[in-house]
């Protein structure tokens, strides 16, 4: 069974890309997609690279366990300058996305450290991580919380087109909300109930405030229920 390349159409970053296995061109395993690098370009926020390694993975583990793990990781190699920098695979090296991500090259020396954000020139675009965005609460025009960012939709050029907002965090990757008929019925009903408040917000209607770690949505947008990608 050949699966189609998801990168030929719109896709959801968390559902389809995050935590996927990365294979090299010979089919050997490279790493998992531990996080996604988002860069602010003239087209808006664009996914530019896959991120891998403990510095990318550990911040995505929520709660006290995640924080402890991150600190421990840092302390174990405090003398290393790049200890907290993840590995980076540019999208230029990515061939396609089917049930795994395939690269155009072999895995030999493919994982290279991402540049240190503290050494960035002012002309260089700011690089962000999807994992950071995913924990931002979402406020509507009057300041009330609508939930958190659960997923983001990207187009064929990897540009961010919309955000998916909802309450609750567990089971957000199960994908039940995307497929009308996915079984088993009991689990689907339970997950649907957990995510009954989900909605999709176009990126033009939202402002991402990275400093305050919050997303604000405009009051006058049209509400759309989430639909499968």
């Amino acid at each position, binding site marked *: 069974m050949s699966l189609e390349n998801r990168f030929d159409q719109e896709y959801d970053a968390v559902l389809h890309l995050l935590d996927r296995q990365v294979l090299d061109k010979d089919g050997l*395993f490279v790493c998992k997609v531990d996080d996604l690098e988002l860069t602010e370009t003239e087209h808006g926020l664009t996914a530019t690279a896959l991120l891998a390694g403990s510095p990318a993975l550990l911040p995505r583990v929520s709660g006290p366990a995640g924080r402890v793990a991150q600190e421990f990781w840092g302390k174990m190699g405090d003398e290393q300058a790049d200890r907290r920098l993840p590995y980076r695979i540019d999208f230029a090296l990515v061939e396609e996305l089917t*049930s795994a991500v395939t690269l155009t090259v072999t895995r030999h020396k493919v994982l290279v450290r991402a540049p240190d954000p503290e050494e960035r020139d002012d002309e260089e675009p700011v690089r962000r991580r999807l994992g950071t965005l995913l924990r931002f609460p979402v406020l509507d025009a009057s300041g009330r919380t609508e939930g958190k960012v659960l997923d983001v939709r990207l187009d064929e050029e990897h540009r961010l087109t919309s955000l998916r907002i909802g309450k609750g965090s567990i089971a957000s990757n199960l994908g039940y909300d995307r497929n009308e008929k996915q*079984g*088993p*019925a009991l689990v689907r009903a339970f997950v649907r109930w957990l995510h009954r408040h989900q909605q999709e917000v176009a990126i033009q209607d939202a402002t991402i405030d990275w400093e305050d770690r919050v997303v604000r949505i405009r009051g006058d947008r049209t509400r759309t229920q989430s639909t499968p990608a």
Partner: protein
Amino acid sequence: MKRLLSVALGVLTAIGGFVDIGDLVTNAEVGSRFGLSLAWVTVIGVVGICVFSEMSGRIAAVSGRATFDLVRERLGPGMGMVNLLGSMAVTLLTFVAEIGGVSLAFQLITGVDYLLLFPVVGVLVWVILWRAKFSHIENVFGMLGLGLLVFVVALFHLGPDWSQLGHSALSFHPTRDESWATWAYYGVALFGAAMTPYEVFFFSSGGVEEKWGPKDVSVMRTNVFLGFPLGGLLSVAIAACAYLVYYPLQASVDTLGQVGLPIALALGKIGLAIALLGFVAATFGAACETGLSTGYSIAQYFGWQWGKFVRTDVAARFHLVILLATVLAMGVLATQVDPVMVTEASVVFSAVALPLTYFPILVVANDPDYMGERVNGRVTNALGTVFLIVVTVAAVAALPLMVWTRMGA
């Protein structure tokens, strides 16, 4: 003809590979104390493992990905990590029990104390996992494990009163002097022994090792639906033999030597020799499987190259994990803890870890992203949901029962 042979091989390997030290010890203990009054638990356990192994195998054949690989994708890194830690703990405990089991089996053959033997066994397991081909490991130990069929033969030779056996099997209550709590505790233990968590993850990783494709699904199903129930039959035979020999003596089974005694009584030295070969093969095979499973789980969570289908140096981290797991297991055995007791603990903790294992499998097997059109049908989903409820009940009941009955005393 060649196809028929390969199907037969698969079925035989499934039967021989079904029983491990947990099954040997738990079934004999239960038989000696409760007769066949818990046989229904084995039946349910066998149905459960058939349903989930089929799902797990289908996932590997259709998507080319192993099940645990997909757990992190579907549940996220946090829940995936919880799953990893839980599965690893139980798998390592089982690994210790299996290596201990092999050592005890060798002690029965050679008379040398198992404490002197386990380092040899540990090194042997590691070398085989490092060097031998995956299919060789599976086929050799699976076929030799068929020696345990001698339990079925012995059962007939012991000349039982079949109506008495039937009566015991249909009596759904504890036997003389045993409390309901103890009966329930052993029921949960038996369930954990039949539905070993590592088995389903191993089955799908094995499928990827052997490069199954969608065309292999029907062969895989034959192996599962023929092999596992026959393996379950073996478990019941072990319990029945123990029942016939030990129950009238009011003796309980605590050691591996006692497990094999009914064979000697029924069939003499020849039968015993075959049974001992079966013990070694079953426990050694299971030791290899659990050892590999520790490597599979960690590598599949972090995305490292795993498997014996690539050269050892290409999957260096995977083999390192297996080495460390073997050293750790030997370290635990060096504390002189009784391997039979470790086995008893491992089956109960297996029961506790069951929902962690089965829920992701059910989710992934329904996902068209991985399965295309071969997602679960309605019957499979119905069975899957029912079993999910059953395993959750067993998991929740396991630890309280263990504490309350003081580990089934």
